[in-house]
C-alpha cells in the first residue's frame, strides 16, 4: 500500500487530478504541498478522480474538501468522481463541518511585534506591582488584626512551618556560610599579604559577614528554598480548589495560609542568620589557622577589636524585613496561580526571582539609610 500520490493533466481548461495510493496522514505533507497551489494555477476548474485511492482518512478527505473550498472562493468548477462507496461518507462528513482553509503562515513583522511585546511586558509588570502593594496592605491588616485577636494565629501551622523553613534549613545554610567564610578569608589573606597586614583578614571576614554576607546570602538561599516552596504549596492548593474550599468554609486564606508562613519565616530568618554568622566566622578562623597560623583565641581577640555589637545588629536587624519580603512574595505568587500545573511552575520561578530582587534592593536601601545615619 503506497503513500498517496497524484498526477495532474489539463483537459479542456480543466485540471484532472488523478489520485492514487493511500490518502492518509502519513503522506499528507507531500499531498498538501502539491494540492495547495492548484486552484491558483489558472485552470477553469478541478476534477478529482479518486478511482485509484486505496485508503482515505480524515486528513485525505480534508485535502479534497479544502481544494473544493479554494476553488469555490475563486469561482472555479469542482467535481469528485470515482470515490469508493466507503470513502464518500467521510468526504461528506468532513465537508459538513464547515471549516475554512488556513493560509500558510507568514513571517512575523519583527520590529512592531517586538515593540508591542515590550509594551505588554511593561504593563504586566506595573499591574503586578499594583497587585503586590494591595496584597502587602491586606497582609498588614491581617497582621494587625491577629495582634488584636491573638486567637486567630494558627499556632500548630506556625510551628510546623518554623520547623520546615528554620530547623530543616540549618544544614544547607551552615555549610554555605562556612564555605563563604573560607573563601573570604582566603581572598583577604591573599590581598592583604602585599601590605604585610594579613592579620586584618579577621576584620574583613568579621565586618563583611556580620553586616552583609551572612544575612544576604542566607536570605537568597531561603528565597530559593522556602519562598519557592510557599508558592508551590499554595499554588497546588489553588489548582486543587483547596483555597476556594477554605473560603466557602469561612476560613480566610490570609489567616490560614499566609500569616503562619510569614510569621514563621520572620522568626526563622534572624535565627538562621545568627547561625550563618557563626558558621562563616568559624570558616574564617579555620583559614586563619591554616594560612597565617593564627590560633582561635588570638582570632577572637582580633575579632573583638574589629567589630562592635552594632555591626552584628545591623546584619540581624535586616533579617525580619527580608523574611517578610520573601514570605510575602512567595504567598502572593502562590495565590496568583490559576488552573494549571504550568502556572505553578512559572509563578514559582517568578517568586524566587522577585524575592531575591527585592532582597537586594532593600539591602541597598538599608546601606544608604545606614550611611546617612552614620552607623
Amino acid at each position, binding site marked *: 500500500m503506497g503513500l498517496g500520490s497524484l498526477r495532474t493533466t489539463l483537459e479542456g481548461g480543466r485540471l484532472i487530478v488523478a489520485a492514487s495510493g493511500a490518502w492518509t*496522514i502519513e503522506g499528507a505533507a507531500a499531498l*498538501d504541498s502539491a494540492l495547495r497551489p492548484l486552484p491558483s494555477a489558472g485552470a477553469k476548474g478541478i476534477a478529482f478522480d479518486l478511482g485509484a485511492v486505496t485508503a482515505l482518512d480524515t486528513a485525505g478527505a480534508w485535502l479534497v474538501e479544502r481544494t473544493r473550498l479554494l476553488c469555490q472562493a475563486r469561482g472555479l468548477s469542482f467535481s469528485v468522481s470515482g470515490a469508493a462507496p466507503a470513502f464518500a*461518507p*467521510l468526504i461528506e462528513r468532513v465537508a459538513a463541518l464547515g*471549516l475554512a482553509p*488556513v493560509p500558510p*503562515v507568514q513571517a512575523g513583522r519583527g520590529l512592531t511585534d517586538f515593540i508591542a511585546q515590550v509594551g505588554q511586558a511593561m504593563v504586566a509588570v506595573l499591574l503586578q506591582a499594583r497587585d503586590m502593594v494591595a496584597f502587602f496592605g491586606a497582609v498588614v491588616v491581617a497582621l494587625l488584626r491577629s495582634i488584636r485577636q491573638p486567637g486567630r494565629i494558627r499556632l500548630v501551622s506556625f510551628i510546623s512551618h518554623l520547623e520546615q523553613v528554620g530547623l530543616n534549613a540549618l544544614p544547607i545554610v551552615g555549610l554555605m556560610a562556612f564555605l563563604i567564610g573560607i573563601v573570604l578569608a582566603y581572598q583577604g589573606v591573599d590581598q592583604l599579604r602585599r601590605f604585610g597586614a594579613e592579620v586584618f583578614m579577621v576584620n574583613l571576614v568579621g565586618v563583611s559577614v556580620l553586616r552583609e554576607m551572612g544575612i544576604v546570602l542566607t536570605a537568597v538561599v531561603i528565597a530559593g528554598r522556602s519562598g519557592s516552596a510557599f508558592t508551590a504549596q499554595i499554588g497546588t492548593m489553588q489548582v486543587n480548589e483547596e483555597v476556594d474550599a477554605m473560603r466557602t468554609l469561612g476560613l480566610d486564606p490570609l489567616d490560614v495560609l499566609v500569616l503562619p508562613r510569614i510569621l514563621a519565616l520572620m522568626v526563622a530568618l534572624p535565627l538562621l542568620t545568627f547561625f550563618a554568622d557563626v558558621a562563616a566566622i568559624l570558616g574564617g578562623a579555620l583559614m586563619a589557622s591554616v594560612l597565617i597560623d593564627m590560633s582561635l583565641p588570638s582570632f577572637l581577640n582580633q575579632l573583638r577589636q574589629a567589630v562592635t555589637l552594632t555591626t552584628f545588629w545591623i546584619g540581624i536587624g535586616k533579617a525580619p524585613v527580608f523574611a517578610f519580603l520573601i514570605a510575602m512574595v512567595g504567598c502572593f505568587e502562590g495565590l496568583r496561580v490559576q488552573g494549571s500545573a*504550568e502556572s505553578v511552575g512559572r509563578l514559582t520561578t517568578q517568586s524566587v526571582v522577585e524575592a531575591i530582587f527585592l532582597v537586594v534592593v532593600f539591602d541597598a536601601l538599608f546601606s544608604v539609610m545606614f550611611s546617612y545615619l552614620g552607623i
Partner: protein
Amino acid sequence: MTLVDPIISVRGLVTRFGTQTIHENLDLEVRRGEVLGVVGGSGTGKSVLLRTIVGLNRPAAGRIVVLGEDTGALGDEQRRRLQGRWGVLFQGGALFSSLTVAQNVEVPLRGQAKLPAALRAELAALKLALVGLPAEAGSKYPSEISGGMRKRAGLARALALDPEILFLDEPTAGLDPIGAAAFDGLIRNLQQALGLTVFMVTHDLDSLGAICDRIAVLIDKRLKIGTMADHLKDDHPWIRAYFHGPRGRAARGG
C-alpha cells in the same frame, strides 16, 4: 492481518503491584470494529488493564498483541508507529496545560506526521469540529474550558492521527446525564464514521447499554465477556448486583 484476526488479543496476562496481584491469567479478544465496554468494581484493575495494553504498565507475564504486533517485543521505532495507530483518552482529558486546545491536538501531528504548520492547524480545527467543539475553543487553554469540553478536546487529540483503536478511560465520568448521553452518541457516531474499534473502561450503565457491542466484566482477576443479555443471565453475585441493581434496571428501561 485479516478481518477475522482479533485487533487486540491478550493471553495469560498477569499484573502485580508488589505482592498484590491485579490480574491473574487474564484473556481478552477485541474484534475489529466493535465497541467493548470494561466494567468492574472500584480497584479491580480496569484502568490498569487499559494502561497495560497501551504499554504504560509492564505485565508480570502474558502476551499482548495489538494490530498484529506483540507489544512486549517492539523496538522504539516500531512502538512509535504502533502508537500512531491507537488513541488514548484519559479520565480528565490529560491535556497539556501549557498548550492551547488546538496546540494539544497538534502535538501528535507534529511528532508523528511532520506536517507543515498550515495543514496542521487545519487538521486540528477539523478534529475539534469533529468532536463537536466550537472553533473558538481552539485558542483557549485547558484551564479555561469546562470538564466536558476538556474531554472532547482530549478525544480530538486521541483522534488526531486517525487511529484504528480508541482507548477510553471512563469517558463519561463527571459529565451531567445530558452531556454523558451526547458523549456516548459522539463516540458511537465517530466509531461508525471512522471505522474505529473502541476499548472503553466505564462505570456508566447507560453507556454500556447504549453503545457497547460487548461487555467485559472484570471479576476475580479475570474477564467475563459477553453481551448485555449474557450478563443478565449470569448468576455471579457481583454481576447480578451490578446489572440487576436499581441503576442497572433503570438503564435497561425496566
